[in-house]
């Protein structure tokens, strides 16, 4: 079989881009699950809100892409923290199922509201001027914006990993994941930490939404389509593992891209087939601890 390098690399790039979104979203899910024990089904809707927030900032307030990268995650993060304070906190310590139902319901409501006002078609969001155009790398043509998304996502993922695994704040977080009662008895305000953690996870989703706006258009259901694959990524990587979710996110994006090149018919299902295989061999995921 002759290999067309040009299109192989193009598919690899698409895979890396998708992998970036998988990684950012599953990372947020892992952070939230670790601390709140909640499988955040609202994650896709919050990702969508991030993209819409960038869209509003630009079209209503005239605030462009670069400030939106900071403002949108903070704004949506605050929305998330209000959600946590008013609703999610009451679910602490009871069955996972309630958290799942509540966040799933929240996702439906948020998406319904946006669909009501914006329909189902996509709104355009243009690539910022600084990142327009592309580079000829010799073996392929690289659109600059896509290269930026991959590199920026990687930096954010590594930064988040560093924050959690290597800093004092991260030590509080890891300790509170294991034994919140004792950490609180050491004088740390654990409920406030939980709220901020949810805000962090939600902020990561919103950031992914902003990054995705110029590539995928801004649609009310953009998150609903993506989140199904992201949950498969989380299951494969192992729920709650930070590094696992980052690596699995990027790896599955690449595997998907390669499948698109070698056997396009399977590209939509390969992640789920992998999920089944992993579950058969390691039910707690590749990096998950058996419970």
């Amino acid at each position: 079989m002759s290999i067309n390098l040009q299109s192989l690399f193009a598919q690899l790039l698409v895979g890396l881009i998708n992998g970036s979104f998988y990684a950012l979203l599953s990372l947020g899910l892992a952070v939230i699950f670790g601390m709140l024990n909640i499988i955040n089904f609202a994650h896709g809707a919050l990702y969508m809100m991030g993209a819409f927030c960038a869209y509003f900032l630009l079209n209503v307030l005239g605030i462009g892409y670069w400030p939106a990268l900071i403002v949108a995650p903070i704004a949506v993060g605050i929305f998330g923290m209000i959600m946590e304070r008013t609703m999610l906190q009451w679910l602490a310590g009871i069955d996972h199922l309630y958290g799942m139902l509540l966040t799933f319901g929240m996702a439906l409501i948020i998406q319904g509201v946006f669909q009501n006002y914006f329909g189902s078609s996509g709104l355009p969001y243009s690539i910022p001027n600084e990142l327009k155009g592309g580079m000829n790398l010799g073996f392929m043509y690289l659109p600059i914006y896509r290269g930026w998304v991959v590199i920026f996502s990687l930096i954010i993922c590594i930064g988040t990993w560093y924050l959690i695994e290597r800093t004092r704040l991260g030590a509080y977080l890891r300790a509170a994941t294991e034994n919140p009662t004792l950490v609180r008895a050491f004088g740390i305000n654990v409920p406030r930490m939980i709220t901020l953690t949810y805000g962090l996870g939600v902020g990561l989703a919103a950031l992914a939404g902003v990054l995705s706006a110029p590539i995928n258009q801004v649609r009310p259901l953009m998150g609903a389509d993506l989140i199904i694959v992201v949950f498969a990524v989380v299951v494969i990587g192992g729920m709650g593992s930070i590094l696992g979710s980052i690596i699995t996110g990027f790896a599955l994006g690449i595997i998907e891209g390669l499948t698109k090149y070698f056997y396009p018919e399977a590209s939509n299902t390969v992640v789920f087939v992998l999920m089944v295989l992993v579950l058969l061999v390691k039910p707690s995921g590749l990096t998950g601890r058996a419970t």
Partner: protein
Amino acid sequence: MADAATKPAAASGAGKTVLAVQDLQAWYGESHILHGINFDVNAGEVVTLLGRNGAGKTTTLKSVMGIIGKRTGSVRFDGQEIIRTSSDRIARMGIAFCPEERGIFASLDVRENLLLPPIVRPGGLSLNQIFDLFPNLKERLNSQGTKLSGGEQQMLAIARILRTGARFLMLDEPTEGLAPVIIQQIGHTIARLKKEGFTILLVEQNFRFAATVADRYYIVEHGKVIDGFANADLQANMDKLHTYLGV
């Protein structure tokens, strides 16, 4: 705390009352565990709660710490009522708790475990003083917390609350399951902390160990304090004690 620091091994009842517990009742879910606990602890003392398994000793410590959800009665610390206070605030007032299960975090290395509890007030031990007390910990700073031996984990659990500046320590069965030589080391540590003016509330099953460090004892049975005496009267109370503890 300067007066406490200069005082020699405190005679029982010498200091002012630091902790006063009155009619403390506590519940785990529906089950009523404490039925009216009364005792107090004076500055610079080591007070030991003795009693059989399930008598309510651990629950008493947890209730003072604010970890037990449903509790009534009165717990006064340094004159302030803390029965309704959340555990993070209680910790910030200067009470430090070392739980029976030690609570060493598996996802943190020894250094992170040691540095985890925030400093609540000045005057805590420095890391060098801590390594002085527990030389083993210094060599294992980069190990995963739960890779330590049981004795080392117990030392780590005590060491990390000494950094915080809290002067009132609650130790829940610090000798449980440990080798005699380690129990001895923990005994020396407690004696030294007492000499430095710490006030310690200890829960023990091993009253032979308790006898080496305690100033006073309270006997807990069925969620109540049923008796109490000073260390000096230990011999006179030995028969009663055997009956209480069933040994």
